[in-house]
């Protein structure tokens, strides 16, 4: 037990250590972020001007689809699983994850899954071109042949997520140090516990959806074909029963990260800890009963439209509680602006803006206009890029010194922040205008009145993309040659067990559990 890591590549292939696996997840997710980002750059380059310049419409559709899939399943979800792996055992005083070998398995499934997914782009007929929401029958009867590989790749990702979720639940419920009661757990652990339940509940639903597709395509069933008595809208109900909780799977761990960073740099305990826990649970619960707000135009009965509108609006209440708690935490603190805090503050502002547009989308009559326009694209990039990606970035800056015992370059970190912040807003704020003016999403080409804002948006996207290269450089430079940090408590205001272990965190921590007051 007391020995260090194995040498060479074997360490990474065969490891059962939560820190190694966390590192693997984080690097994998960053690689996928670059791949997904590259696809986004292709999209934005094509949309730079009206007319088709760089790619064909079918390739454009493949880019949109793969961008969404790779970002959601390849970049964001693994990033937070990676953080969970690194931090949860440290935060609750556990020697490792509960099921270490399965932990390694959940990671290594992912490279295979994404290899298959990305390989479809090189197959005859091209890769998936039906959007990340893969509505039937475009994704069944009318799909390219590669759809079968896509289906099995999704199955693999689902298996990985389910195992990951089981592991997290078992760890949190079973591995806490003596005295670490549930209501003493850091919020990051709480948000992940709840997220893990969401994953367990909805990944099988996604698996069911793609299985039905597989059967419709290859084995003559008629789930989504009216000719046999099925219904394409059934697909959408199933997909969004998965899909809506999925967006909270993406954002809840981000809430956890922000709830760790803001108190640290405000030097003040988190305001309203227990209401944060209840709000998270409430959001998770509500996320199961609002799915059809993505389907206001499919022709549901009036009662359905109204019900889903009301239920969706309710989510603003617990989310508001979170935002207010963060702000009250900052209120009368002693605030300093290190890079993680800058990203956290930007998160609060931009996520709230994204939440407001979410609320506007929830108003069913107005959504008749917004639906499937760039207004929606703007909404979800505010919550997913400025939400999930910003918080993931903040987390990396925040915990990097603890992970590798070296301090990142603060100036470069701040520069990264400002370029990212400005680039992000130039890229995505104008998309609100585009959507309101009537530009539909998933368009390879557009009418002339949309030209100006598209160009602005593309320029912003390039700026934001370039900022990521700076980030990559900063992280590598830190790991290789950053200024060494010795103190266990890297940040003056930080609280929690993870700051009691030495810096850099040793290979094995808490082999004997710490005492928690």
């Amino acid at each position, binding site marked *: *037990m007391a020995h260090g890591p*194995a040498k060479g590549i074997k*360490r990474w292939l*065969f*490891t059962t250590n939560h820190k190694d696996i966390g590192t693997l997840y984080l690097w994998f997710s960053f690689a996928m972020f670059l791949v997904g980002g590259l696809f986004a750059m292709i999209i934005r380059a094509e949309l730079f001007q009206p007319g088709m310049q760089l790619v064909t419409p079918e390739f454009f559709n493949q880019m949109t689809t793969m961008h969404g899939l790779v970002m959601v399943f390849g970049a964001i979800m693994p990033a937070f699983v990676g953080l969970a792996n690194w931090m949860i055992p440290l935060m609750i005083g*556990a*020697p*490792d994850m*509960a*099921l270490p*070998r*399965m*932990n390694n*398995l959940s990671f*290594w*499934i992912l*490279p*295979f899954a994404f290899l*298959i997914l990305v390989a479809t782009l090189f197959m005859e007929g091209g890769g998936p071109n039906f959007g990340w929401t893969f509505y039937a029958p475009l994704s069944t009867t009318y799909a390219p042949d590669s759809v*079968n*590989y896509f289906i*099995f790749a999704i*199955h*693999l990702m689902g*298996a990985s997520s389910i195992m990951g*979720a*089981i*592991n997290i639940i*078992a*760890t949190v*419920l*079973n*591995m806490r140090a*003596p005295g670490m009661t549930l209501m003493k757990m850091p919020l990051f652990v709480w948000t992940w516990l709840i997220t893990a339940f969401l994953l*367990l*509940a909805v*990944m*099988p639903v996604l698996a*069911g959806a793609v299985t*039905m597709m*597989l*059967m419709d395509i290859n*084995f*003559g*069933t*008629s*789930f989504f074909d*009216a*000719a*046999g*008595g*099925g*219904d394409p*809208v*059934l697909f959408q*109900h*199933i997909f969004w*029963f998965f899909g809506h909780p999925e967006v909270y799977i993406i954002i809840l761990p981000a809430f956890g990260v922000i709830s760790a960073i803001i108190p640290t740099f405000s030097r003040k305990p988190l305001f309203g800890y227990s209401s944060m826990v209840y709000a998270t649970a409430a959001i998770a619960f509500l996320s199961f009963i609002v799915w059809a707000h993505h389907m206001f135009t499919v022709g549901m009965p009036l009662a359905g439209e109204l019900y889903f509108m009301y239920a969706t609006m309710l989510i603003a209440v617990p989310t508001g509680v979170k935002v207010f708690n963060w702000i009250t935490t900052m209120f009368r603190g002693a605030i300093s602006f290190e890079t993680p805090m800058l990203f956290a503050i930007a998160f609060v502002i931009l996520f709230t803006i994204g939440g407001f547009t979410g609320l506007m989308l929830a108003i069913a009559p107005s959504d008749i206009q917004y639906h499937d326009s760039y207004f929606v694209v703007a909404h979800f990039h505010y919550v997913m890029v400025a939400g999930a990606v910003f918080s993931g970035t903040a987390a990396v800056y925040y915990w990097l010194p603890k992970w590798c015992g070296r301090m990142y370059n603060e100036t470069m970190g701040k520069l990264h922040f400002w370029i990212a912040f400005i680039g992000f807003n130039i890229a995505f704020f104008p998309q609100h205008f585009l959507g309101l003016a009537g530009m539909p999403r998933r368009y390879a080409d557009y009418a002339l009145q949309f030209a100006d804002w598209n160009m602005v948006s593309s320029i912003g996207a390039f700026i934001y993309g370039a900022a990521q290269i700076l980030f990559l450089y900063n992280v590598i430079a830190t790991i290789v040659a950053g200024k060494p940090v010795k103190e266990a408590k890297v940040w003056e205001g930080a609280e929690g067990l993870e700051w009691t272990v030495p810096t850099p965190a040793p290979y*094995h921590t808490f082999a004997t*559990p710490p005492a928690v007051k």
Partner: protein
Amino acid sequence: MASESNYYYVPESSKLPIFTALGMGLCAYGAGSWVQGHSPMVFLIGAVILAAVLWAWFGAVIRENLAGLYNERVERSFVWGMSWFIFSEVMFFAVFFGALFYVRTIALPELGSPLETELLWKGFEPSWPLHVTPEMAVAGEAAKFKGPREIIDPWHIPLINTIILLSSSVTVHFAHTALKNANRRMFIGWLAVTVLLGAIFLGFQIYEYGEAYRHLGLTLNAGIYGTTFFMLTGFHGAHVTIGTFMLLVQLVRAIKGHFSADNCFGFEASSWYWHFVDVVWVGLFIFVYVLGS
């Protein structure tokens, strides 16, 4: 050492997971190319690797267990793991039940509503079981999706199967009680009976499918009735197969003397799985067979 309640066994680094992942990856890729009409070779290679690695993995777990490396706390992780895995399986079945309810209460009535029948599906009448699909109402015998001529009578084989599966839940419980009472012979006996009942159930199910395909026109292509019928009963059948296999493995282990009253997680996990499969069947019997006829 193992008795110390705070100690937790963390396994050494292991080759097992990555080869499992490799097996799964090959299976997924191979399945993709197989359904597309290519050879199943890649899939089979993946499956062989997967089987071999899982064999080794379970072997390792059993060895570690027998070596006393697992204390109560480790076992609790397994308990949580298995319970939440079963929960995810419940959700998987829930989707297919959900599809059935949706089709019956929303899709079919809408397909039979005035606008749809006037403009698209002249003469279509929704009913359950759906003998005449919308396409058939318009195109007659030329239709691709033709509803079943007849469906399975719930009060014959399905009823027998219900009785078989329900009793198997009881027998596996008897086995558990016998184990708790350290009655090895009864334990092995009841477990063997359970495995046998599982196998008989599967036999009947296969017979029923044969009948459906040969005599009733009830196939996967038989419109939404055939679709929901086969997908629900089929996935259930697959789970019974897995469950029977799991119990069979436990039977072999029982004969080898692996279990004691307080060290029997492998058996317990399999029996939970078996109860779960049983409960799903009760749902099927009611919603697919009885209320479906």
